[in-house]
C-alpha cells in the first residue's frame, strides 16, 4: 500500500438530510483536527427539516478543508465528492475539481432517485461517459451494510441508518486515520443501546476494511499542520460565541442572562448555553424577540449581564427596545447571527446584509457600538470584546456573526482563563457615612459612561426610562437645549469607544500599496487567502479586516489613504461601502456576492486583478 502526501484536501460529503451527512462530516473534522491538521468547514443545510428524500431540495452538504498548512476557508472547490444519491451528485458536481474523486453510493442511483434528481429518463450518470473526467469509486452501501449486520438482530431500518459509518470508515482508510475518536463518540452517543454501538462500530470498521481489501488506489496522507504551538480544540462559531459570553461574564464577575427566541441560525447558541446551567448561565426562552430583549434589559437593570440573540428578522423586531437600552445606558449585548434576507429570505444560508440595520434600525439618533466576528474562533474574541464594551461603557452593543461562521468549524488554540482580560463594571456605591455624595444616575466618567446602580443597594433608589432625561439627574426633561446636549453627548459617548480599542492593523501585506482589500465579518478567510496568494505573486495588495464597525478605529482614514484603491468585498449588496464612502469620501470599490454562499478565493483574486492599477 502506497501513500501520497498532500498539503491540503477538500472533501464534500453530500446526501439527504436523513443520511447523517452533518454527523459524518463533523466526525471526520474532529478526527482530522485531533491529529493536528488545520481545518475549515462549511455545512450547507436545506431549509426543510427533512426535505423530501432524494430531491435536489433535500440535499445536505458538509464541506471540509483540512491540511498540513494554515487554512482560512473551507475551500473553493473539492478534491473528493462523496455522494449518497443522484441528487447529491447533480447538485454538487460543479464543485468538484477536474480530475477529482467521486465516491458514490450506487444504491442512491436507482431509477426513482434518478427521477427525483431530475435526470432525463434512462440516464444514469454513473453509467454513461459524463463522469469520465473524474475518478469514480462506486460502493453499494445498503447492500454492504446489511451484509455486515445480518447477524446483529437489528431491523433493516436500524441497519440502514448506519450506512454513513461505512462511508466514514472508508474515508478514514483513504486518509490514513484511525477510528478511535469516532468509536469513542459512538459509545457516548448510544450510551443506552449497546446493540447500536456494536453495529455502528462494526460498519465503521467494515468501511475501513473495504478500503484496505478491495481498493487498489493508494491512501493519501495529510500531515499535521505547522500551527502555532499550543493546545487546540475544534470549534464552531456559535459554540465559540456561547463560550465567549460565558467567559466574558465570568471575567466581569457577572451572571450571564441570555434572553432569546429560537431562530435559525442563532438557536445553537441557546442550545449550547442551556447546557451550562452548572456555570450559573441563565437561559430564558421568551415568547418572542421583543420579550427576549426586554427580559435581558430587565436582567441588566438588576445587575446581570443581559444578552439577547436572534437573526435578521428577529433583530428587526428588537429595534424599539434597543433604543430603550440606549437611553437607559445599561450594558446589553445583542447578537445577530445573520442569514439570507430580506424578510424570511433564505433562513439556512449566510449573508452579511444586516450591517445597516445594526447601525440604523431604530428611531431617532441612537448610534451604538457594532462589532463583527470574522471566523468561527474569532466569535469568541469578538463577543468577548463586545461584552467588554457593553459593560465598561454602559451601552448596548451589537455583535454580528453570520450563518457561515456560526456553523463552520476550525481548530482553536483556546486561551487560558487567566490570560483573558478582566472586564470591569463600574458600580455605583452605597450611600454611607463615608460616601455622602448624592447619587446622580446619569453622572458620567471620563468614558462618558454612567455608573451601574443595582436595585437592592440602599440610597441609590432611582428611576430611568426612555423619555429624554436631564443631564446627570436623569429626571424627565423637555428642555430643548438639554435634548440637543444629550443627543450629542450620547453620540460622543459611542464615538469615545474608539479611544478604548486598538488601532486598525493590516492583516496581510504592507502599510502602503496599490490595493487595500477592506473586509469585515466572514469573508475574512477568503480575502486573506486571496491577498496572500497575490502578494506571493508580486502584487502590492494588502488586507485589513474590521472588527469595529462603529465606531471605526481612529486610524482607518489614514490607512485608506495609503492605497490607490480600496476594494470592499461583502456578502450583501454593498453596505460597509456606504459607510466608508460617506465617512471618508473615498471612492471605494464594491465586490458583492448575494447567493447565500461565502466568497471563493478565486472570486476575490479575480476582482483584485481586475481593478489592479497598471
Amino acid at each position, binding site marked *: 500500500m502506497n501513500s501520497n502526501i498532500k498539503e491540503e484536501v477538500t472533501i464534500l460529503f453530500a446526501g439527504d438530510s436523513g443520511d447523517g451527512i452533518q454527523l459524518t462530516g463533523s466526525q471526520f473534522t474532529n478526527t482530522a483536527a485531533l491529529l493536528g491538521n488545520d481545518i475549515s468547514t462549511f455545512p450547507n443545510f436545506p431549509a426543510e427539516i427533512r426535505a423530501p428524500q432524494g430531491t435536489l431540495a433535500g440535499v445536505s452538504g458538509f464541506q471540509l478543508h483540512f491540511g498540513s498548512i494554515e487554512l482560512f476557508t473551507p475551500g473553493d472547490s473539492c478534491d473528493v465528492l462523496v455522494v449518497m444519491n443522484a441528487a447529491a451528485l447533480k447538485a454538487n458536481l460543479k464543485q468538484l475539481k477536474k480530475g477529482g474523486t467521486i465516491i458514490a453510493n450506487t444504491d442512491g442511483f436507482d431509477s426513482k432517485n434518478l427521477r427525483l434528481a431530475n435526470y432525463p429518463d434512462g440516464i444514469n450518470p454513473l453509467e454513461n461517459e459524463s463522469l469520465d473526467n473524474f475518478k469514480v469509486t462506486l460502493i453499494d452501501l445498503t447492500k454492504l451494510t446489511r451484509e455486515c449486520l445480518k447477524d446483529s438482530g437489528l431491523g433493516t431500518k436500524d441497519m440502514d441508518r448506519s450506512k454513513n459509518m461505512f462511508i466514514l470508515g472508508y474515508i478514514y482508510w483513504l486518509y490514513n486515520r484511525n477510528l478511535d475518536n469516532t468509536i469513542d463518540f459512538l459509545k457516548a452517543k448510544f450510551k443506552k443501546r449497546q446493540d447500536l454501538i456494536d453495529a455502528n462500530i462494526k460498519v465503521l470498521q467494515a468501511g475501513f476494511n473495504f478500503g484496505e481489501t478491495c481498493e487498489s488506489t493508494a491512501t493519501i496522507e495529510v500531515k499535521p499542520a505547522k500551527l502555532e504551538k499550543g493546545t487546540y480544540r475544534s470549534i464552531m462559531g456559535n459554540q465559540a460565541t456561547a463560550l465567549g459570553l460565558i467567559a466574558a461574564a465570568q471575567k466581569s464577575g457577572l451572571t450571564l442572562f441570555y434572553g432569546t427566541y429560537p431562530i435559525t441560525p442563532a438557536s445553537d447558541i441557546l442550545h449550547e448555553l442551556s447546557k451550562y*446551567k452548572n*456555570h450559573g448561565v441563565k437561559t430564558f426562552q421568551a*415568547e418572542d424577540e421583543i*420579550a427576549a430583549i*426586554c427580559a435581558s*434589559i430587565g436582567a441588566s437593570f438588576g445587575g446581570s449581564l443581559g444578552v439577547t440573540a436572534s437573526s435578521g428578522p428577529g433583530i428587526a423586531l428588537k429595534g424599539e427596545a434597543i433604543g430603550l437600552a440606549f437611553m437607559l445606558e445599561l450594558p446589553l449585548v445583542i447578537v445577530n447571527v445573520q442569514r439570507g434576507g430580506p424578510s424570511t429570505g433564505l433562513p439556512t444560508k449566510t449573508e452579511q446584509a444586516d450591517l445597516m440595520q445594526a447601525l440604523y434600525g431604530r428611531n431617532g439618533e441612537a448610534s451604538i457600538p457594532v462589532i463583527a466576528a470574522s471566523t468561527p474562533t474569532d466569535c469568541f474574541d469578538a463577543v468577548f470584546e463586545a461584552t467588554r464594551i457593553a459593560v465598561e461603557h454602559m451601552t448596548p452593543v451589537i455583535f454580528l456573526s453570520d450563518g457561515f461562521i456560526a456553523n463552520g468549524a476550525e481548530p482553536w488554540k483556546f486561551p487560558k482563563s487567566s490570560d483573558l482580560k478582566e472586564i470591569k463594571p463600574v458600580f455605583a456605591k452605597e450611600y454611607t457615612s463615608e460616601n455622602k455624595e448624592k447619587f446622580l444616575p446619569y453622572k458620567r466618567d471620563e468614558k462618558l459612561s454612567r455608573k451601574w446602580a443595582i436595585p*437592592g443597594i*440602599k440610597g*441609590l433608589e432611582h428611576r430611568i*426610562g426612555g423619555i429624554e432625561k436631564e443631564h446627570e439627574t436623569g429626571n424627565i426633561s423637555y428642555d430643548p437645549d438639554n435634548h440637543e446636549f444629550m443627543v450629542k453627548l450620547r453620540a460622543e459617548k459611542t464615538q469615545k469607544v474608539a479611544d478604548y480599542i486598538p488601532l486598525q492593523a493590516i492583516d496581510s501585506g504592507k502599510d502602503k500599496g496599490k490595493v487595500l482589500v477592506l473586509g469585515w465579518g466572514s469573508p475574512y478567510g477568503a480575502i486573506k487567502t486571496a491577498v496572500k496568494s497575490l502578494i506571493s505573486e508580486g502584487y502590492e495588495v494588502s488586507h485589513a479586516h474590521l472588527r469595529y464597525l462603529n465606531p471605526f478605529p481612529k486610524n482607518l482614514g489614514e490607512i485608506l489613504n495609503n492605497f490607490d484603491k480600496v476594494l470592499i468585498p461583502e456578502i450583501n449588496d454593498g453596505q460597509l461601502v456606504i459607510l466608508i464612502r460617506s465617512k471618508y469620501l473615498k471612492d471605494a470599490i464594491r465586490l458583492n456576492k448575494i447567493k447565500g454562499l461565502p466568497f471563493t478565493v478565486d472570486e476575490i483574486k479575480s476582482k483584485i486583478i481586475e481593478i489592479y492599477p497598471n
Partner: protein
Amino acid sequence: MNVETNIQKPLTAKDFTSDQEVRWCPGCGDYSILKQVQSVLPEIGLKREEIVFISGIGCSSRFPYYMETYGMHSIHGRATAIASGLKATRPELSVWIITGDGDAMSIGGNHFIHLLRRNFNVNVLLFNNEIYGLTKGQYSPTSPAGKITKSSPHGSVDHPFNPLALTLGADGTFIARSMDRDPKHLREILLRANKHQGTSMVEIYQNCNVFNDGAFEIFTEKSSKKNETIFIEQGKPLIFGENNDKGIKLDGFKPVIVDLKSDNVSENDLWIHDENDRGKASILVRFFDNHQATGHLPRPFGIFYQEDRSCYEDDFKMQIEKASMEKENESLDSLLAGRNTWTIN
C-alpha cells in the same frame, strides 16, 4: 439624611414619595392609587431599596417616577417582559408592574399572558380606565362596544376583553379587582396581592376624568354603589344591596339574584365565595358582560381566584443550583477546552 439613624425609624408614605412633581390631570384617579401604594408599602415592611416599580407607557405608567424606590418607565407594553427578566435574576426583589388597559392588553397582550402562565412572583397593578389616556382619548381593548371616542366617532365596533377572564384563561394564579375610589378596599387587595406567591393581577378601575369621565360612576357613587357592586370575601355568601338584602345563588352554572327578605331563601342557600375554585371563578369573572344570559348582575370586587403554583424564578433558580451541584467542579478552563483537544509542540 443621616444614614445610621434612619435605619431605626419605621418608614412612612412620605419616605416612598420621590421629589418629582406629580403630573397627572387634576382629579385623575391615578392620584388615589398612588397614595394607597405609598401608604401600603410601609406596612408591608420592605425597604425602599428592595422594591422596583416597572411600567410601560401611558398616563398610569408615569407612576414609578413618583416612587422613591428603584424604577423603570420603559416602553409601551413591555413592562411585563422587563419585569420577567429582572425577577428571574433577582428573585429577592419586590417587583411591581404598573400598567394601563392599553399597555397591558393592547400592545402588551402577549407578554401579559405569558407572564401569567409563567407565574413570576410579581404584582401587576392594571389601571383600567377603559381609554387610552396619554394619547388623548382613543378607545381601548376594554372600552365597551359602541363607545364613541376620538378614533371611533361612530362608536367602536370592537368587542372588549374581559381582563379577568383573560387572566383566568392564561392560568393566572391571583385575580382581583378594586377601584381608585375605595381606598380601604384597594389597600386590602394590595396587601393580599403582595402576599400571594405568584403573579398577582389586580385590575383597578380608574377614572380618567378628562377622556372617559364617569366610566365607573355607578360602582363608585354612593347612590348606586350598594346595588351595583358586590364585595366578595373568602368563605362568605354573596350578598349586596342597599341594605345587604340581596344575595346570589347558583342555579346550576347560572347565577341568580335572590331577595333575602321576600324570597324564601336563607344565607345558607347562597353562593359561598371560594377563592380556590376555578370553576366558580370563571363564572364570577363573567358577572357583567353577558346580560342576556345572566340578567343584570352586580359587579364583583375583591379576590376572585387564588391558586398556589410554583413560581418561574424559583424553578429557574433550583435548576441552576441543581446543575451546579451536580457538576460543581467544572472550571472555565475545562469549559474552554471542551472534551477533545490536541497539542502542537
